[in-house]
């Protein structure tokens, strides 16, 4: 008899505990996306329009993003301090060279960084395409309203009409990048 009552009470307690565990368990800190990569291709009709921005490149000239309309753009959010960005930099450098003839433009967005370190990074990895400075993360903020950018590196593939067609959240591998580009340009590398 006592056992029965105790079982009932235990059952109630368990149910209550499980419920609470769910309700309060969500508080782990979420920082950058290093280590977790996902490549996403947005289906037609679900491709958000990339926001326009005007910013200063690392070499000091002004750049307007809408000037890239009509080209396929690979927009890469990076920082010289960011380990996974350093890991994918060679990939980007190679892909940029390979797709230049196909008319694909690569543009970097240098987040939370300074010019000296950023230029040194570009020299180091042979990145020849331009990057704009986003030390205040304002460009990132704009883009986060349309795609869930959680940290760096994040690579977006934007089609000729200015819509974001694909994204890699995290370190992009050569395979992932070229797959996305192939789908968008209809061409393979080279």
């Amino acid at each position, binding site marked *: 008899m006592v056992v029965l009552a105790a079982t009932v*009470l235990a059952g109630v307690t368990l149910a209550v505990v499980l419920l609470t565990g769910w309700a309060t368990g*969500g508080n782990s800190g979420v920082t*950058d996306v290093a280590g977790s990569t996902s490549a996403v291709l947005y289906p037609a009709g679900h491709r958000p329009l990339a926001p326009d921005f005007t910013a200063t490149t690392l070499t000091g000239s002004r750049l307007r993003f809408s000037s890239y309309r009509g080209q396929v753009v690979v927009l890469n959010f990076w920082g010289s301090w960011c380990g996974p960005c*350093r*890991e994918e930099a060679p990939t980007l450098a190679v892909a940029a060279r390979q797709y230049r003839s196909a008319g694909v433009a690569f543009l970097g967005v240098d987040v939370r960084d300074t010019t000296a370190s950023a230029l040194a990074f570009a020299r180091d990895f042979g990145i020849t395409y331009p990057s704009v400075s986003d030390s205040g993360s304002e460009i990132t903020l704009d883009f986060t309203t349309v795609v869930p950018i959680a940290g760096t590196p994040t690579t977006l593939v934007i089609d000729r009409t200015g819509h974001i067609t694909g994204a890699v959240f995290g370190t992009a591998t050569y395979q992932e990048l070229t797959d996305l580009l192939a789908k968008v340009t209809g061409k393979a590398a080279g």
Partner: protein
Amino acid sequence: MTDVRAPEADPFESAAEQDDREDRSRDRAAGTLGFADWLKWGWRQLTSMRIALVLLFLLALGSVPGSMLPQEGTDAAGVQQYYTSHPALAPLLNHLGLFNVFAAPWFAAIYLLLFTSLVGCVVPRTFRLAGSARALPPRAPRHLTRLPRSAEYTTVLAPALAAEVAATVLAGHGFRLRRPADASGGAWVSAEKGYLREVGNLLFHLALLGVLVSVALGGLFGYKADRLLVQGTTFADTQSALDEFYPGRLVTAADLGPFTITLNRFDASYITSGAQRGQPASFDAQISYAAYPGGPVRTDQLEVNRPLSVDGAKVYLIGHGYAPVFKVTDARGQVVYDQATPFISGSSGNFLSQGVVKVLDAQPEQLGFTGVFVPTAVEAGGVLESVFPAADNPVVSLIAYAGNLGLNSGVTQSVYQMDTAGMRRLTADPQLLLPGQSLKLPGGQGTITFTGYVPWVSLAITHDPGQLPALICGIAALGGLLLSFMVRRRRVFVRARASGPGTTVQIGGLARTDASGGFEAEFASLAAELRSAHHQAAASRQHEGE
């Protein structure tokens, strides 16, 4: 209804215990006990005062480890340290959830059971209270002298009139009255007062429940975030720009408000003399902010205790520190690093701060420096100390390394720590630099210049939709508590019987919930007032009669 009970009942027994007793005797009379009865028994146990007491103890006891051990939410570094200093004990404690007590399932079980017990007790009583809102006090007992408080005196007024006068007096004091339906039982008045006590009691307990719900609201829909901001820089409120982000269960990064904040200037002043020399006197941050991209830019002064409200979130000034500015030229003469580097002051006083400079793209080799920034430096016995928190005599001490910083393979590192495993030391001793001085690295590896320093602030961005409801419930709980403590439920009865040429007036009273005393004084003054009212009425009748 349990409200109408014999005055001889124990006034200290709570309604719940009374029900308990009555239910138990009913059960005993019934005989056999089925499963439903056992459920009822279990429920009654859960909602009993005894279990409530036990659960309260467990709640208090369970909170103790949460205050003694480092907790993950507030002191993650401390938890790590605990692991290193207690390698065998730490995993066991972690298993028991002792490094995150207040989010642990067992702690939740305690307070949820407590609240279940509370609800199970309070809700039926609320219904009972609503039901008894119009109920009348019981009839006056025959022998009022047997009540805990009684008084007796005589008057020349007729019994019926005496009862009238008594009723008027008692009604004047706000008592709820009951008069006899007919003359068969004699002349009497029943009076009861103090129903608000139960209202206060229930309000208190329900308000506590409201606090719990508010906390849950915050846990589901609120978030906390941190960001360190160097003077002269800007940050936009987006996940990738935050140093830490703790979303609630149902919150995503999309819920962050799209504001940007620029730290224009930060000032801190310290006490320069007296016993409190070195204590911060004031600090404030001049910021400009825009609530959304392209929105109007406003300025504000952030201080401790004075947060900024923007986009439904609040931005708090939590702390500050120094970021020395370094310029590094590599072996090839290129400027490869030129920025303010936040250094963190630990527990050592006067803002003695530590940090690292990682020059990832120096050629031919990566360079790294571990440094100590001393705001007001004094060398004592070969050891560099900071004797004042303001930067009155800033000195930087650096140790230089070259090699592989380990970041190229894609791991993430803290910007305040450097992994020297793949590096070799370039300078044997720490090198001291004053602002403006440079250190030439051996082997032509390059130069590092300590150009100056700027302050940084740490900001906390929080959103808690449960905050205002919690405050309202807290105030309601306090109100209910005061009401239940200050109001006494008591009954007063008056009987008037003819005796001889006059009338004997008997007054009886009891306090149902008067464990603290205080009814005696009220009864004494009521009795005196009734008597003088009767004597006055008698006197005025005599007057009229003449």
